[in-house]
């Protein structure tokens, strides 16, 4: 364990050294994945580009705070930094929308969990990006980042039950979109 480093561990060490080639290697390994993470949160292409670049800078400048905890831990840590950057951007630019959404929550009937087996990930990301900003953010944090409503409330500065309501609405909207998608592309269902 001590003397045989994994490729991820070796890359981490080189990044700690401030090695610029290592930064490019990191980009070639993880950039597409991290861009995918950004895309779940940020709808606008130009915004995505800025958030993505800032996330990379954040990753490289804070690499000293990462501690290697097994294969995949560097990617997981980089994902957290990227999500934080996306949230920071959303807080700065979309604060008004989050506040508005907080006020117009109404109870809604629960849609069934729609089947997603036949839907490619690309299409799901496109659907997520069509969701209103606030719904999308809460849905991402709850479903993909595994945050609790309490944590989401703290992160976004909203109330806990507001997080729950927004998740509920996001899911219902998504279910409609998934049904439409399935109707068009997989008419048997």
């Amino acid at each position: 364990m001590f003397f045989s480093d994994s490729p991820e561990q070796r890359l981490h060490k080189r990044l700690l050294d401030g090695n610029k080639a290592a930064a490019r290697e990191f980009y070639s390994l993880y950039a597409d994945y991290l861009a995918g993470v950004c895309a779940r949160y940020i709808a606008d292409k130009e915004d995505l580009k800025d958030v993505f670049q800032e996330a990379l800078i954040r990753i490289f400048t804070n690499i000293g705070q990462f501690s290697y905890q097994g294969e995949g831990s560097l990617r997981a840590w980089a994902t957290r930094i990227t999500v934080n950057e996306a949230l920071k951007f959303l807080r700065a630019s979309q604060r008004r929308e989050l506040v508005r959404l907080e006020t117009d929550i109404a109870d809604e009937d629960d849609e069934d969990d729609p089947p997603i087996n036949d839907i490619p990930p690309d299409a799901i990301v496109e659907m997520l990006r069509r969701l209103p900003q606030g719904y999308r953010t809460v849905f991402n944090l709850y479903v993909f980042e595994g945050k609790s409503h309490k944590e989401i409330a703290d992160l976004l500065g909203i109330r806990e039950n507001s997080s729950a309501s927004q998740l509920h609405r996001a899911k219902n909207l998504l279910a409609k979109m998934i049904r439409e998608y399935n109707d068009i592309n997989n008419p048997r269902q």
Partner: protein
Amino acid sequence: MKEEWIQQMRQKMADYSQPAPEVSWSVIDGAMPARTVFPLWLKSVAAAAVVILVAGIGLKFLDRGDATFDQPVNNVIENESKPVHEQVEQIEYVEHLTEPEQTRQIEPARQIRQSAGQPAQTVFAMAVTDNPETDAVPSTEETTERQTDKTTEHKADENQPQDRPVVANPEPALPTELYHKKRSKESRLMAMAYVSNSINDSQHFESYKTGIIDSPNNPNNPYTSDQITDTNRKVHHHQPLRIGMSLRYRIDDRWSLEAGLAYTRLISDITLTQDGVSNSETQSLNYIGIPLKVGYDIWSNRKFDLYATTGGAIDRMLDYSFWQFSVNGSLGADYKLTNGLSIYAEEGIGYYFNDGSTLSTIYKDHPLTFNLSLGLRIHF
């Protein structure tokens, strides 16, 4: 929304990626941490300088340590004109006489004093304070503290010119011979195992601004207004733990060399807060190192040995490829349990050089640290 559906969704998107946007490498490169290059020869020179500095600081610090002890001790330093080893021999001799100790001890002590033409009170104090250690076994901590003070006194003495006229000793032959005889019986090789800890753990908090982005292509980007972001970083370093084994070889009556192998573990809790969002990490660093020391015996009798060491260590970080260089000076007290076995405590001060990484370690935040080692010594 069922947990199963969430899992399904998570699985589907687990490795989702899309072509990454182009980035400005000039901006990213500019933001990357620069590695400090510190040539090896400079390290050696600095190490030598620090050894001297650390020894000096250590002695000064310890000198101020205990006011009640300072009084008689200072008298000895200032007034005693005999070279230090002769004083030690006298005291050695005193303690070898087993008859009623109090009276016996005071007698030769007075003789020294008279021969040096100083008030008797000074050495009297010294002889009496030495006494309890010869029969009673004080706790290790007490011993270290008390002996530490005396070490200072002897050390300081050595700094005085040695070429002063030596006043005739009333009993010159006996004590010297006894001292050497005793020494020659001692083993030359010792093996030891120890645990060492720094005296304080450390917590600190820092705020800084990062991520100044230059985005010439998009000056109206709303994000640029938030170019500079606040980051708070809280670091709590636990006490470093060092365990090791080493061999000490006695070159002559006083000087010895020591080399060994040590394992060190550093644990730090790091909490990074960016705009109210916190990420906590526990950083664990492991080192294997080779400490090298030179030891000097200041004072000893049948049971006790008081010594000073100075040296350095090279530690290899096992988690990442960095080297940690350090220098250390310490004062130690050794108590013989049996002929072959003793326990010891060493109080040291160490200086740790920057390892050139961006890692936050207790060594980087507190390069100058005090440490305490406890160990067992086997005498061959």
